[in-house]
């Protein structure tokens, strides 16, 4: 029970960081959630840049990343029951 409580607390911290990044609470597809986490990490690393708006390359890079998400999920479900 103690482990479960600690675990819940630790995971809740990660949730708070998700909220801080996304600012929304509605249910999303699983891959979208992963994308959100990844893009928030990407956003943090870019925060020191003067221009806060994404440029064309950044958008393209994000699309590439998104396109790579589906195959990983497909691969997972081909190796596991899902």
């Amino acid at each position, binding site marked *: 029970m103690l482990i479960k409580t600690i*675990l*819940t607390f630790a995971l809740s911290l990660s949730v708070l960081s998700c909220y801080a990044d996304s600012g929304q609470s509605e249910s999303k597809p699983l891959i979208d959630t992963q994308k959100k986490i990844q893009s928030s990490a990407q956003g943090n690393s870019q925060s020191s840049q003067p221009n806060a708006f994404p440029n064309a390359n950044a958008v393209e890079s994000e699309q590439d990343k998104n396109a790579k998400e589906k195959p990983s999920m497909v691969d997972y479900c081909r190796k596991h029951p899902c």
Partner: protein
Amino acid sequence: MKMKFFQVVAMTIAVNCANFAFAAPHWSHDEQATWWEIEDTSKDLPMKYPFATCGVGQHQSPIDLATAKFDNTRKLNKLQASYPIDSAPIFFNSGHGIQVNTSNNYKGEIKIGEESYPLIQFHFHEPSEHVINGKPFAAELHYVHIGNDGRIIVVGAAIDIGAENPTFQTVLDNVPHEASGQKTDANITINPASLLPASLDPNDLDFYSLAGSLTTPPCSEGVQWYLLSQVITISAAQLEQLKSFYSDNARSPQNINGRTLSSTK
């Protein structure tokens, strides 16, 4: 108050930060009550517990259908299964069940309204995972679909003992018996649709639908379930053959936690 906090945190974790453990630690159906506490010793918190959602998730699958309230106020999209013959299926023993992976260029899909979700694989559980009033069916078939947006749609069909199913026999005869074994044979094709009764109209399937999760670790939520109203049949001998691979590879029913069931009936 404490319980409510726990529920809110758990639901938020599950819905917003669900994550797949792509290199998952070992698990088995025998220890399903403690899936949540299986550790990945190579990771730090919170990923140290990759299956935590199995314990703290609030939209877990399977369920006892009799415990769910029906909400028939929602207009449901039509469910259309288009599963042509796959000329190069991969018969796979996942170590937890028997499974058929579709080939990379397979065009089979499920259509829900205007959205299409390609069929990635189908697999079997014995006995069924979804139950009614605590009573399981002999087995259960899950068609797993993944959309371009990553959304997972599982179409489930309860399996009863009855007429032999020739397509199921093809599966039984070709899945290797050793865990992680897989087989492809240029001479063996499979028609996933022919597992379903011929009387079913694949362009207008009757179903029960609810939000749920994967029924195996990491028990990730955000999975939409469509449970077909009509059962399919296999023979008693086929059930025994299925059990010779894996028996009792079903997760127990999970708390409904206020979810409602929609139905076309």
